[in-house]
């Protein structure tokens, strides 16, 4: 008999032969990136590969994931939607604003979005958050995975406009996208420092852990706005 254990709201660990990370499929019957569908007691779950998703890795690295059924999320760097699809599963009664600036990735994202009414795709540069000011409401979580040198600044700009005062920032930092030659540890220290004091608003770091062994040279960060 498969066993379903809740790790965080909407996020499950399923034991069926082996252990899987999973979310409940909001678009039953549809897979997004070749993940498995598991039917258990009338519910369909999609397995979630932590090696293909930094948020998935954060779950397994025991980050507190501040997402619930009704959460509103601003997701920056949606790519083709691997992780976005799981966030859409988790916040089934909420909303996900999925910002991506590559038209090629957006094409893939659009095909997965079709049956998820809580998902709002936005083709735009996250570095210019005013572009989507007429679309995006205040959110509980800003999730960012843009792999860009100025990511701390992008996070701050978006948080300034869209993050509720009691909201959270979840961030994945890729050392190589900041500086290809420098030591990753140093890059992480610098980036944390930027988040803490370089821009407005400033953040208070709640958790920062590397995402090994799921993602090499990546740091996961959970932060909130500094009082």
């Amino acid at each position, binding site marked *: 008999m498969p066993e379903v254990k809740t790790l965080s709201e909407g996020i499950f660990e399923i034991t069926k032969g082996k252990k899987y990370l999973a979310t409940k499929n909001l678009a039953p019957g549809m897979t997004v990136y070749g993940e498995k569908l598991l039917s258990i007691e009338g519910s369909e779950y999609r397995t979630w590969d932590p090696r293909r998703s930094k948020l998935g890795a954060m779950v397994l690295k025991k980050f507190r994931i501040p997402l619930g059924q009704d959460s509103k999320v601003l997701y920056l760097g949606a790519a083709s939607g691997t992780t976005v699809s799981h966030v859409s599963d988790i916040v089934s009664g909420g909303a996900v604003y999925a910002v991506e600036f590559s038209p090629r990735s957006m094409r893939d994202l659009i095909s997965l979005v079709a049956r998820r009414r809580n998902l709002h795709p936005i083709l735009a540069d996250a570095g210019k958050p005013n572009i*989507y000011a007429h*679309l995006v409401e205040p959110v509980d979580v800003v999730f960012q995975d843009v792999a860009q040198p100025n990511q701390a600044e992008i996070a701050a700009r978006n948080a300034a406009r869209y993050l509720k005062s009691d909201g959270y920032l979840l961030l994945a930092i890729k050392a190589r996208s900041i500086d290809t030659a420098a030591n990753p540890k140093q890059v992480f220290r610098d980036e944390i420092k930027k988040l803490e004091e370089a821009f407005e608003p400033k953040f208070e770091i709640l958790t920062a852990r590397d995402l090994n062994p799921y993602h090499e040279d990546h740091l996961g960060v959970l932060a909130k706005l500094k009082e």
Partner: protein
Amino acid sequence: MKLEAWFGTLDLGEDGKVLASDPFSKNVRELALRSLSLREPGKGIPPAGFDLRSAALACGFAGSSEEYDSLLHEVTLDAAKLQISGALTPDQRIILAVEALDDVNETANVLSERLSEWYGGYFPESGLSGKALARFVAKYGSRKNVAPEDPLYAKASNSMGAELEAFDEELLKGFATSVCSLYDRRKQIEAYIESSMENIAPNLSLLAGPMLGARLISIAGSLEKLAAFPSSTIQVIGANKALFKHLRSRAPSPKHGIIFSHPLINTSPWWQRGKIARAVAAKLSLAARTDLYSGEKVPSLAEKLDAKVQQIRLMNPEPPRKKPESGLKPKGKKKRRQ
């Protein structure tokens, strides 16, 4: 204060309360087009933290939170689709063609080698390869069918190759026909790139040649990005691997971008190449900007480049005494002395 939201225009009081609102009809396409027109934020941008959802519910645009999400979902989806269909600009089409050309070339090479290996068992003396071999096999099949007026007739008659039986012949002919059509496809794509380049980047085409010009656009990502690069970057475009190594290990910075395939550079003696490459890169950069902003062909660009190159040649007739920089030598294996 007037404020523009995706679902309507709102009038906001001093205290942030919505005084009046003018919601639009729920026509998805209209809302999507309007949403796209609001991307150039000017006046009317909602203040930070403004709750669009509550305002939409309050003004009666949406009857429930679910309806709000449903409509917003359809509108953002439609807007993204509209943007994407418009995103395939002429330079993006050229980039797709360049990528297709690379695939066709690679496939043609692999299949040609296969054909060569395969047909070699039946007619090893043919001396043909690539396109010529594919045409030959597609035309004759067995070497017994070679026409007497064909220059290969004698060799075909005296070949030590095995007999090609009808069953195998059919297979090989079909295979060769496929290879031929790949070569035809290559020609077609090249012609497409040449004429498209003439249309969207006549100056770059003139100075770099259409294929090199198209490759520069392809690696840069768009004509606009290429035009924004400083000429020092244009000089090393395509040297990515070397550039990465340079950043990681402080190896000498690469000087061989793809512009080194430019005839003005690759036919020059080594000691002039760096200087000529710089001159070419500067003019290509100018050409790309001219193409982006005016689109008019300016023949004097080419004359100026030629003059500049002549001048470099005259001023540097002899190789310098010191050893050439390692980056310039074709086989720069040895480390530079400190």
